[in-house]
């Protein structure tokens, strides 16, 4: 099980105060905090092994290259990638999805084609497809959600009737916490002849992911949401798709030979890693993965689901609170509104008690329109959160209610 007390000791920032209060960090869906081990790994890398990779004949450069490629192996194992050549390091989920849209999409989507996304997707898994479809004269079809915040399977089926070229969806919704049936959706999309892109930004940090079991074609995630440094992340792809795709960023590392007017490309994954790679990010990601693996992703998922259950239960006891998202199949994300108090005001008031939550559209405006709200407040949990944090959250929410009522009446 998860020993939050011990874990909290690993995170230097949790010792800090927020407005004089114990820091109750509940914005983990936005970004996670970093354990000392990751910070030490960054410092150690720069103090012992830093060099540009892949081209140096000296020992330092070999060490940096080894560290970088070892991180690739770690990521490959972490998600059970098809092959380690199918792991492309990126800055994060957004870049991974844009890479697929810009390379695979531009090469394969044409006028009259359809691309499918869902109404619960994050802007990062919508806007790249909008841009692609506008450029190509293709149609973007947005699958509706059910009243309780799941992908509407009937509408998903209808969307597949257009034989889309590509289907994109989130494994876990950052706004609702919904855990989607990724393997089932992928199977249906494949049966319709589509290539599938799974947005893993909210799944990789929180549950055991196996891309081969999902069976998708592309899977993108961000390191910064899973204890790793900002600027880390990866796109996982079937190698044969990467082989056939045109490059994305032109530059150093990704070429085989450069003529004056044309070039040939390096092998995958290097073909997609133009420019000096962020070795620090890869090294930090590998350490973060090791940290999570040591806890066990199954335990991480269970811990967060448990916290979400408690939070839903306790918040529901407050009159005027509305909670969004499904009752079960929910990850550690709890979105809510409280009477007519605007979420932004709620976040400000909670912050005074050291409770950090997010208020807004959470980069899911299409979803907000369907929920009929301009914004929600969102508490999202991670390995260092405990039931005390939920008590602080609930107490601060009650205070906000009092403040608005007491002073306003």
């Amino acid at each position: 099980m998860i020993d939050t007390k011990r874990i909290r000791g690993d995170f230097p920032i949790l010792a800090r105060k927020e407005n004089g209060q114990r820091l109750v960090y509940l914005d983990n869906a936005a970004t996670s905090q970093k354990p000392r081990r990751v910070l030490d790994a960054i410092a150690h890398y720069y103090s012992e092994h830093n060099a540009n990779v892949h081209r140096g004949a000296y020992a330092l450069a070999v060490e940096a290259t080894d560290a970088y490629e070892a991180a690739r192996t770690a990521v490959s194992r972490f998600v059970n990638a098809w092959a380690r050549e199918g792991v492309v390091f990126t800055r994060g989920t957004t870049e991974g999805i844009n890479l697929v849209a810009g390379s695979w999409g531009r090469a394969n989507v044409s006028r009259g084609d359809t691309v499918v996304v869902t109404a619960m997707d994050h802007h990062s898994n919508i806007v790249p497809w909008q841009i692609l479809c506008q450029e190509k004269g293709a149609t973007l079809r947005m699958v509706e959600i059910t009243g309780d915040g799941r992908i509407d399977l009937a509408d998903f089926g209808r969307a597949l009737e257009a034989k889309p070229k590509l289907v994109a969806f989130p494994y876990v919704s950052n706004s609702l916490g919904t855990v989607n049936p990724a393997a089932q959706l992928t199977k249906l999309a494949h049966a319709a002849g589509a290539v599938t892109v799974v947005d893993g930004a909210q799944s990789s940090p929180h549950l055991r992911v196996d891309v081969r079991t999902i069976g998708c074609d592309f899977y993108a995630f961000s390191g910064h949401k899973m204890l790793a440094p900002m600027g880390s992340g990866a796109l996982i792809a079937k190698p044969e798709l990467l082989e056939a795709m045109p490059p994305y960023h032109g530059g150093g590392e990704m070429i085989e030979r450069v003529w004056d007017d044309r070039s040939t490309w390096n092998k995958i994954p290097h073909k997609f890693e133009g420019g000096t790679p962020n070795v620090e990010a890869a090294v930090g990601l590998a350490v973060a993965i090791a940290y999570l693996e040591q806890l066990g992703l199954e335990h991480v998922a269970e811990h967060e689901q448990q916290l979400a259950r408690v939070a839903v239960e306790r918040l529901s006891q407050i009159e005027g609170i509305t909670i969004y998202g499904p009752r079960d199949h929910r990850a550690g994300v709890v979105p809510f509104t409280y009477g007519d108090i605007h979420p932004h005001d709620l976040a400000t008031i909670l912050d005074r008690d050291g409770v950090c939550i997010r208020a807004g559209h959470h980069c899911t405006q299409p979803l907000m329109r369907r929920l009929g709200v301009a914004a929600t407040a969102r508490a999202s949990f991670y390995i260092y959160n405990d039931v005390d944090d939920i008590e602080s959250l609930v107490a601060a929410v009650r205070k906000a209610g009092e403040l608005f009522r007491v002073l306003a009446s």
Partner: protein
Amino acid sequence: MTDLGELYQQVILDHNRSPRNFKRLDSATRRAEGNNPLCGDRIQLYVQLDGDHISDIGFQMPQGSGCAISKASASLMTEAVKGKTPADAEALFQAFRDMLAGGATAPGKLAAFSGVRAFPSRIKCASLAWHALHAALQNTGDPVTTESAKDF
């Protein structure tokens, strides 16, 4: 709790509950839209200019949009500039900005927003309606957003 009390002063909570001039103005001679892309809040502003003064003014915010600060600020702004010349309104905006930037207190009820200074993340909420007013008076027609790298 004292600084929260200074942020959510009685007059602000009151204008949030019952915003003044909360109406569409079909006779408006100037219109502007304001956006706060950070939180998705939006305001529609309607200004009726008669000769050299603002003879009427109204605003709307889409359902559920508009936090207490932005709604109260819009409401108090409309009260403050009604009947004023554009130049006087712009001068008030300047005074309001100066206050948010840490300068002297703005005149009249606008002083209620001095507590916002202690909440940097809310300054854009307080200034949203004023930016829309400025755009309407300049008659640029472009929607304005508070997400500018350089000012608030």
